[in-house]
């Protein structure tokens, strides 16, 4: 059904910059009309947007990013600058192989490169996006992807 829906990632410049910025904001998702989406992200309070609601919230949000940073800097120190650059180029290329944003992509190439195909962790068991009951807004997600938002 979806082979003809696979498009190249033609993101605008702004969305590309968001890849490497650590997530520090704790704000909830904005739903329709700019109001907080209670159905999808629960009740909100100003406190929860300023302070983490769990001791591990910030650490877990940035975990993958920090691991990558650590691995790349170790690689740079051992093998020279070319090693992390080559790897990051491969990651960027593999990340572009995906379906439209509101559909489930397998990320097979990216997983193989990162080694996620040989490990199972909580993201694979709990809260599997493939099993989620809701789908994102197709039009808005595609517009963001193309950098029109």
């Amino acid at each position, binding site marked *: 059904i979806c082979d003809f829906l696979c498009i190249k990632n033609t*993101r605008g410049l702004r969305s590309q910059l968001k890849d490497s910025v650590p997530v520090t904001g704790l704000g909830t998702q904005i739903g329709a009309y700019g109001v907080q989406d209670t159905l999808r992200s629960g009740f909100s309070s100003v406190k929860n947007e300023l302070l983490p609601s769990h001791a591990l919230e910030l650490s877990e949000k940035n975990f993958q990013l920090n691991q990558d940073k650590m691995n790349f800097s170790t690689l740079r120190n051992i093998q020279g600058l070319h090693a992390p650059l080559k790897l990051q180029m491969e990651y960027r290329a593999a990340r572009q192989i995906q379906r439209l944003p509101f559909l489930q992509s397998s990320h097979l190439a990216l997983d193989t490169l990162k080694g996620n195909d040989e490990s199972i962790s909580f993201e694979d068991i709990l809260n599997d996006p493939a099993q989620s009951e809701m789908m994102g807004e197709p039009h808005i997600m595609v517009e963001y992807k193309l950098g029109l938002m």
Partner: protein
Amino acid sequence: ELAHSYVSDKFFLLLISYFCTFRNAVLEFECNKLGHSIPAARKTGTTICGVVFKDGIVLGADTRATEGMIVADKNCSKIHYISPNIYCCGAGTAADTEMTTQIISSNLELHSLSTGRLPRVATANRMLKQMLFRYQGHIGAALVLGGVDCNGPHLYSIYPHGSTDKLPYVTMGSGSLAAMAVFEDRYEQNMEEEDAKRLVRDAIAAGIFNDLGSGSNIDLCVITKGKVDYLRPHDMANKKGVRTGDYKYKRGTTGVLAKAVTKLDLEVVEETVQTMDTS
């Protein structure tokens, strides 16, 4: 700002999952403010121990799971399978030990398929400690990991915050002090299998009889090169008593004076067939 909510692919998925899960922490806090506390997690309040003997490892555990002051499970299994040559006893929160050992078991299986070799105990130890440290002790799993690999028998104890110790004999859980007392008294290097089994059995029994959080039976797991003996139960230290008397009256105690049988004539009035919606 709409862009804030729809961050690119991977972060989007991560954000979805984390926004839903940290909601639980928020809800719990709100509940506690109103005076209702979330039900206590089922802890295993345990005695687990392990010992290295001449040819391998003996792991032992009791079988009681408690929920606060009540025994939740009289015969739960605390010795978890990690790989054919590695087993792990778990103390602390029952769900945490169960899920942690299952995840590590899966990862170790994938790893051993990738390397083509039997997994080593040090690998399992490192995977466990890295995961427990990542979650900073919020995963309440205290483990005794033991197994026999190409380098011989190894025994590790792993604490919930991620520190590990490699020792010839270890105990964990609420009954660990009682069990350690037995070990300190009678442990020797290069014991025979029967002596090691008796020592572990006595250590677990000390935990069972002197600690309220441990009880019921004693499970043993003997791991040697190429063979695993999972003895469950090895020893039923706390057998439930058998009732000696019976308060039920036997048939014929009361004499029957008269008997009258009335037949109820039921006739079929209406018969309908309702098909199940199996689509």
